[in-house]
């Protein structure tokens, strides 16, 4: 195809895709009135485009329920917002945000988004690392000790290697976690159901510490919580 034909062809594509300006479109419409070949070509292009659209029409992501944000808009009052700021300020004080030191007792945290209205925190771990497990539990306890009275909710979400912390067969923290669950109503430990399924398929023992939830994939849960405005701290 020579250059001018190629250019003419691209203009036909642009017409079908609604990319032409007013004057170009007018010229094209006039051309289509008189040029049988162009009319046929536009028809072919339009049909191809519609086949692409039709071939994926009605496809929906695998069922996942997202929360109704309209309800949540009114669920957070000014006091809660103020509490969020306090928590975030305390978070800075505690050295979570932007903290990159990796040693036992400290958390390598990348808090990439600070959502002002958040007063709830998710600590997410996806790696099997004893030092991080220790540090995570230490920080979880610290948040619960210091901010429970302000209504903070804490969730520890694990997937992939992080599941080792919540499996009785692999965890060295069974008693610590049991005690936290027993002592605090505002903490939940969550194991990724998808990750557990994979381990089960590999023949591994996937029994969890009593009180650990495993109702849904970790990614679903994270999305839901982030949509609700929780603050994610990735360990």
């Amino acid at each position: 195809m020579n250059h001018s034909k190629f250019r003419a062809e691209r203009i036909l594509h642009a017409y079908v895709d609604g990319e032409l300006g007013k004057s170009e479109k007018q010229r094209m419409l006039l051309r289509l009135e008189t040029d049988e070949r162009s009319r046929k070509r536009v028809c072919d292009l339009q049909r191809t485009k519609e086949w692409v659209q039709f071939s994926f029409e009605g496809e929906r992501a695998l069922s996942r329920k997202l929360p109704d944000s309209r309800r949540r808009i009114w669920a957070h009052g000014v006091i809660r917002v103020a509490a969020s700021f306090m928590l975030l300020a305390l978070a800075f004080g505690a050295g979570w945000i932007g903290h990159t030191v990796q040693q036992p007792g400290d958390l390598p945290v990348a808090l990439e988004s600070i959502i002002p209205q958040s007063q709830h925190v998710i600590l997410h771990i996806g790696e099997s690392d004893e030092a991080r497990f220790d540090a995570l539990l230490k920080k979880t306890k610290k948040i619960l000790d210091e901010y429970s009275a302000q209504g903070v909710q804490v969730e520890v979400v694990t997937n992939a290697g992080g599941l080792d912390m919540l499996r009785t067969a692999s965890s060295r923290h069974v008693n610590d976690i049991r005690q936290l669950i027993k002592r605090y109503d505002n903490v939940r430990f969550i194991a990724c159901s998808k990750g557990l399924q994979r381990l089960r398929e590999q023949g591994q023992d996937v029994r969890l510490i009593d009180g650990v939830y495993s109702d849904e994939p970790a990614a679903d849960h994270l999305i839901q919580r982030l949509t609700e405005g929780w603050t994610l701290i990735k360990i």
Partner: protein
Amino acid sequence: MDLVNRILAGRDLRKKIADSRDRLYRVALAWCGDPMVADDLVQETLVIALQRISQLRDKQRLNAWMYTILSNSWKQHLRRIRPTVDIDEAGIVGEGDAESDCCEQEVIEHVRRAILKLPVGQRQTLTLVDLGGFSYAEVAEVLEIPIGTVMSRLYSARQSLQKALVSVRATRPAQTTYLRRVK
């Protein structure tokens, strides 16, 4: 008041991100052809978008920004499974997979297969325009390519698809519709 407005705007953005799941999924499915992989890509995109929402300066760009994240996730996925394949590698299109008995579903499968056989760059461009409804300029921004490349990829992709559809027509007997009187 400013704080309240910021909170409401933030919530509105998060809802838009969550609501875009199915559209992202359709494009991701067209890119990878595997519902599970597409689902994972969309999940990853949503998590990253929700995490980094504060980094989005121009809220009007939300849609393009999300597809940029999807595209990056897809590139990473490709690197994991096929580390040496170039995004513009030549593809093989329409090698006569059409069944003789082409019902609607079979044609759909045929179109999907033809899309999957396109080189990755063409596949992304075509689906962002046709499924995502993006303008050429937006696609150029999402994929970080010149607008001329968008147009050439689109041209090549549609040429290939049309060849695939021709092969469907060639194998499908023409249907004649007869009028009949109903008393």
